[in-house]
């Protein structure tokens, strides 16, 4: 097998693999921002640059193919300095007020007031604690102290029910574009790397959405490495470090997507796809991502109900309700035989529930009159 040397270590690679892929397979971490697995590298952010012997320039590891005998340094002082510069530039390009404490006091107040007066900025950034830019800024000791905080207008799209697109925090990495066009293949976020007639060039080339094609799946939100795209329903409810993540299976169609439920104080505040989990490999649709809050509806049944003579329902205890059901079942079975009872199980609920219901009909009532909606 072919070998390259990364940080002095021999690392095997498959032909066609990039330096980033070879490093990742060998357990060597190279930071990335714009790279999105399962898609073509866009190579725009340059955070993944590495030093390659024989090249004057630093090369982006996400799009540089590994080659036999190549010598690569992923974490040299030169590389770290370059990354720091890139991160400073990215931080300065948007209203990333999570690092605002670095600013000198005379700038701090006005910047913070201005930022917080914008829509969707009254709370800490929704990505706080789960932001690639923030993580890297901390890791690389980036400070914005010497920067002029950005001012001016950024596009904001919050007219749709599920997702906010706040370009004041966009780093133009293009992951939302790749997620939409290459992963979900909805082609609802045309690549903004060139003049688009529907966008004002003075506002910069931000990846706006063509809502005729958008399915509101939120793949773009999941792909966003910063707080530019976020879920309206989750806004301000919790931050990454104060939720418990519970893995489960989606309750809608028969694909069985794997979900992370983000739970705080007994409530699901957000749902994301389990990256690399089978079968969905992190992907979700609009129902899987946003269809979780029905369980918290005020209309839930909360107590057993028994129908009264006038047709209304009265609340009952479990004992009352279950005794009534069991007695009526036994009565009917005795009078008309077990086949006078029939049941329909639920194709939405867990296997264990369907198993118990058919067992009740077969082993206790004594009939095979058990079915569910598989046929209809």
């Amino acid at each position: 097998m072919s070998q390259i040397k990364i940080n002095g270590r021999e690392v095997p690679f498959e032909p066609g693999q990039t330096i980033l892929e070879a490093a990742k397979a060998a357990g060597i971490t190279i930071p990335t921002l714009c790279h999105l697995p399962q898609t073509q590298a866009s190579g725009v952010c340059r955070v993944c640059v590495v030093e390659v012997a024989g090249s004057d320039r630093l090369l982006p590891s996400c799009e540089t193919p590994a080659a036999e005998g190549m010598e690569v340094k992923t974490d040299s002082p030169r590389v770290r300095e370059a990354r720091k510069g890139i991160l400073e530039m990215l931080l300065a390009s948007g209203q990333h007020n999570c690092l605002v404490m670095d600013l000198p006091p005379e700038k701090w107040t006005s910047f913070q007031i201005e930022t917080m007066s914008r829509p969707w900025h009254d709370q800490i950034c929704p990505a706080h604690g789960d932001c690639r830019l923030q993580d890297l800024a901390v890791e690389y000791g980036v400070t914005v102290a010497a920067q002029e905080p950005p001012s001016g207008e950024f596009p904001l799209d919050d007219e749709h029910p599920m997702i906010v697109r706040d370009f004041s925090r966009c780093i133009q990495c293009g992951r939302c574009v790749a997620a939409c066009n290459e992963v979900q293949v909805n082609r609802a976020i045309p690549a903004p790397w060139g003049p688009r007639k529907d966008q004002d060039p003075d506002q910069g080339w931000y990846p706006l959405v063509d809502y005729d094609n958008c399915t509101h799946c939120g793949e773009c939100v999941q792909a966003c490495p910063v707080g530019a795209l976020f879920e309206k329903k989750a806004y301000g409810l919790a931050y990454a470090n104060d939720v418990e993540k519970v893995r489960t299976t989606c309750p809608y169609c028969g694909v069985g997507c794997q979900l992370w439920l983000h739970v705080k104080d007994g409530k699901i505040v957000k749902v994301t796809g389990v990256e690399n989990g089978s079968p969905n490999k992190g992907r979700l649709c609009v129902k899987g991502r946003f269809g979780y809050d029905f369980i918290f509806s005020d209309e839930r049944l909360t107590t057993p109900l028994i129908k009264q003579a006038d047709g209304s329902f009265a609340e009952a205890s479990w004992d009352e309700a279950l005794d009534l059901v069991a007695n009526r079942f036994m009565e009917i079975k005795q009078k008309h035989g077990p086949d006078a009872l029939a049941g329909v199980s639920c194709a939405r609920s867990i296997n264990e529930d369907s198993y118990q219901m058919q067992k009740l009909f077969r082993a206790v009532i004594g009939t095979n009159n058990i079915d569910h909606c598989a046929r209809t």
Partner: protein
Amino acid sequence: MTNSFEDFPKAKMFFIIGSNTTEAHPVAATFLKQAVQDGAQMIVVDPRYSGIAEHAQMHVPIKVGSDVAFINGLMHVLISEELYDKDYVQSCTVGFDSLKEKVLEWPPERAAEVAGVPAETIVAVARKLASVKPAMLIYTLGITEHTCGVNNVLSCANLQMLLGNVGFECGGVNPLRGQNNVQGACDMGALPNVYPGYQKVIDEAARKKFEEAWGAELSPNNGLMMPAMMDGLVDGTVKAFYVFGENLANTEPDIRHVEHCLESAEFMVCNDIFPTETTRFADVILPATAWSEDDGTFTNSERRVSRVRKAVEAPGVSKPNWWVFKEIAKRMGHDWEANSGQEIWDNEISVLAPQMVGIKFERIENDGLQWPVPDLDHPGTPYLHKEGCFTCGLGNFTPVEWTPPAEVPDEEYPLVLSTGRRLYHYHTRTQTGRCAGLNDLLGEETADISLADAAKLGISDGERVKVSSRRGEVEVRARVTKQVQEGMVWMAFHFREGCANWLTNPVYDPVSQTAEYKACSVKVEKLA
């Protein structure tokens, strides 16, 4: 599914028939669309120019209910042009001669007449299909929800066996199951003819096995399928009806008839999480825990048993459904030991269902396993009938004859209504209707009609219309769309008001008892 979703990104050819994949199975569709983007071929056969059809190289808009004729026409071409897999047919199948005899009655010209597409298209599809091996056949309810649903499924199997595509990665016959756990409910024996793991109730050995396991005497007779249960409620042979988590009053064809049946029950019990149109008819309603309030498993379309976990507490005094059934059993003199989802699965289901023996909760902490999993070291089965070695021995060709839908358009009701699901809601909206935002994305039912019919009837997009059938009528907005072909109306059943099931026809496939949701006759009138 004989195969897996993991095959989708690798497959080179898809034949998709009767599947609204981008709306009914959106995430599965992403892998299909991506495969096409990366060079795979896709043929979509569907009366509608659906979302997935937009990605196909070929869309074949056959007429509603013409599937058997169309596929017989394809097989005619494959056999007469000797494009089928002769080695596979010879070594892995039986019944080729009778299949051949039948399909030779269906030259492309005759199939074309029934299917409403040119004979040349049928020839082209057959040749294209035969040019790439293996090809994956994918279908959904467009195949099954017909009075000839079973014959439609047999046609799909015939076609794939003739092409030698069953038993290989990236091949097979792949029904995308509608609901999250409809596969599991079948696997668990919530069917009137089989115990858990598809062991037949009329088989004495199977019955003895379960009698011993459950310590009870079991009925040797097949039970009633759902439509017969409903009829039984009316004729008095069924007195007590237990409905668990189903909103039959909206989901079954011909709502007026369904409600009459439910009304006739002498005693009706519902387990549910919300009051529904169906719980109105109950004598006792039992409040159940919902998804994410209890621990258990779902089984997806590709036979993968995955964990479902409790993340939050249920409201009020709601209880798990398995607990409710256990408590009723106790009151009827049966004490069941298992006292959690895990105990029920590990100690009973995976012991009694041979396909599940190797699946225990501890093995599916992360990704689930695809049954059959015959022992604890088995890695699961991504595709069935490996190398054409069928579970039953040889693959059976079953020649089938085309039959039209039970109700076909006439002067009074000149249009065909076909029904399905839309992206933003699920079934009767008991769940999605209570999720913030989804009603904003889709707030009402529409009748989707073709540009041609809209012009003929003088109806513009968004205008209110009356759609009526022999069974009922609804008033909805028209959605004039190029997705629908002339002579067709398409609706969903998500909204009580405007629900397609006020109109649908309660006629069933004679074997599967699946209702003909995909074809009934209606008329559309402009409202003054």
